[in-house]
């Protein structure tokens, strides 16, 4: 109960802040790249913080249904366009047909041998064949995308979140070539006709910029857990990888976990319990 009321208070506070034109959600989209994490912290005492954010996904707990809910809530709250959505011809006349290969996704289901191609095995345990593996940005400790970006539009916050400034991105797509996990999408076209309902807490993007999972930085800033965690029924946990007492570290201590293509040295911050 306590938690609930605190949340609704925060929502009100958040809305008030939008009124003032200084919403924390918009903050990370500003051009002030380095100070962002601190600025958010400074503005909101309740913000969830970490030295290095990480995520544990318990694949045993993920069902098709839960996976579906997770992708849906993530994409809805972040105004990720859905190319299957029927465009409103009145609002967006002359919308051209879509090319599904140009789709945008932040978190999605993959089969085991796509999520972990380097672990491909003829005699793989049966259960892995049908399990949905959720994949998303790994918020790599040594992120190749950050290194590649020529404008610092993709950057790493002090708390380990790899995040983007959509207003600075020039759309060179160097980061997409650099990401070894296919976590990034490019707005080949204006995404707005394909957003069924625009979520007011998060900016929509323009054409020509790259985007990807931001670990719900806007939620953390409000003191709330990422949307995927909230609907995951305990299958996804986020927390501080550098705090030995954190939930996530305890999970890592107790379970055997794997990360995607570890041999590359990118140090992904997303762990899978298998």
């Amino acid at each position, binding site marked *: 109960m306590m938690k609930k009321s605190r949340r609704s208070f925060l929502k009100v506070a958040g809305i008030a802040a939008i009124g003032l034109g200084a919403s924390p959600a918009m903050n990370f989209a500003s051009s002030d790249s380095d100070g962002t994490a601190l600025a958010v912290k400074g503005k909101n005492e309740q913000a969830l913080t970490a030295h290095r954010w990480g995520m544990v996904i318990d694949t045993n707990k993920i069902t098709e249904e839960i996976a579906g809910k997770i992708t849906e809530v993530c994409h809805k709250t972040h105004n990720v366009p859905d190319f299957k959505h029927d465009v409103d011809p009145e609002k967006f006349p002359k919308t*051209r047909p879509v090319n599904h290969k*140009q789709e945008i996704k932040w978190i999605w289901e993959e089969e085991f041998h796509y999520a972990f191609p380097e672990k491909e095995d003829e005699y793989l345990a049966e259960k892995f064949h049908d399990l949905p593996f959720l994949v998303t940005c790994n918020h790599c400790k040594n992120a190749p995308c950050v290194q590649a970006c020529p404008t610092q539009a993709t950057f790493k916050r002090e708390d380990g979140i790899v995040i983007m400034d959509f207003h*600075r991105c020039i759309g060179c797509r160097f980061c997409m070539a650099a*990401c070894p996990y*296919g976590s990034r999408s490019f707005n080949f076209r204006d995404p707005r006709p394909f957003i069924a309902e625009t979520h007011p807490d998060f900016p929509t993007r323009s054409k020509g910029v790259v985007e990807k999972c931001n670990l719900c930085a806007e939620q953390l800033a409000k003191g709330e857990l990422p949307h995927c965690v909230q609907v995951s029924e305990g299958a996804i946990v986020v927390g501080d990888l550098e705090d030995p007492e954190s939930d996530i570290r305890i999970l890592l201590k107790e379970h055997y976990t794997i990360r995607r293509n570890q041999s590359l040295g990118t140090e992904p911050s997303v762990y899978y319990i298998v």
Partner: protein
Amino acid sequence: MLEIAIKGSKNYWSWIIFLLLVMGAGFIVYVDQFLNGLMITGMSRDVSWGFYIANFTFLVGVAAGGVMVVIPYYLHNYEKFHRITILGEFLAVAALVMCLLFIIVDLGQPTRALNVLLYPSPKSMLFYDMLVLNGYLFLNIVIGWKVLEAERNQVEPPFWTKPLIYLSIPFAIGIHTVTAYLYCGLPGRGYWLTAILAPRFLASAFAAGPAFLIILCYLIRKFTKFDPGWEAMQTLAKIVCWAIIANLFFFLCEVFTVYYSNIPGHKAHLTYLLFGYHGYNALVPWMWTGLILMFTGAIFLVIPQLRNNKTLLPFTCAMIFFGAWIDKGLGMISGGFVPSPLHHVTEYAPTKPEIMITLAVYATGFLVLTILYKLATQVKEEVRG
């Protein structure tokens, strides 16, 4: 000196008007891309670079190839190249103009291009690429212009052009090395993740650039009174010969390493290009055509009788040029993206609008080249009287 460019024959003007028409048509398509985004291209989430970047990469090579006339003439005092060094430098200028245009048309937000300067990012290879490309363009414009002007006035070029010329040599190597570094430093792309990429790029550049220069020499002989000199062209042909052999050799080294080590992440790309992968094989005929063209071209150049054959040489050069274009343009970029890091296979083919914009960029390059070559040849004709 520019006044020379506006006095020309009927042929000259028809060619210029033709180029302008292609540029205009491409520009109209570009306006559509500018307004509606890169959706008009065949690129996708998995293959996020396509024809534009492929041609960019190839043309960086053509630009760098110009140094193959600069080195013999300025470092080894090889007099035969005296007449054609300017052609090499101006070819580099035209190629670089196209490179920069290809970068611009590839950007999702071209109006923000200056962000690369506003937020310099020394860890990004693109940052260095931009520095060396612009640096090399600047050097070649200044050097080419000053040397030609001096020749026209029958005086020695200003003393400060010499150090700039020497500087342009490492820059030429630099532009193509850094362009290779764009690709070969990326951890998840097995096809590019190889130390031989930069040497391979340079080898194919030193073949394609001079090969094109030989073709241009033929055209110059046909359309102007200026003769670049058969001996100079022969020497160029030898350069092309060894460079294309080096390129093929590097490619075979790559094939050996990939197949003998048998590492799937590296093998999949070459397999896709050479034999098809999981039933996807759009590039297979192209790749073999490219290899056969380069290989046959190399044989034709090694055998002196064939190399000395005045009728055959331009065709040999065209084969090598086109072969290198397939290898580096079509194969190198798509090959790196297919299969994706998740081992999905999404094939790529440029769309009509994409090809139209590409042609327009080429037309712009040819316009620059035509004008610069007209200046150069006319001045040389005048001087020789």
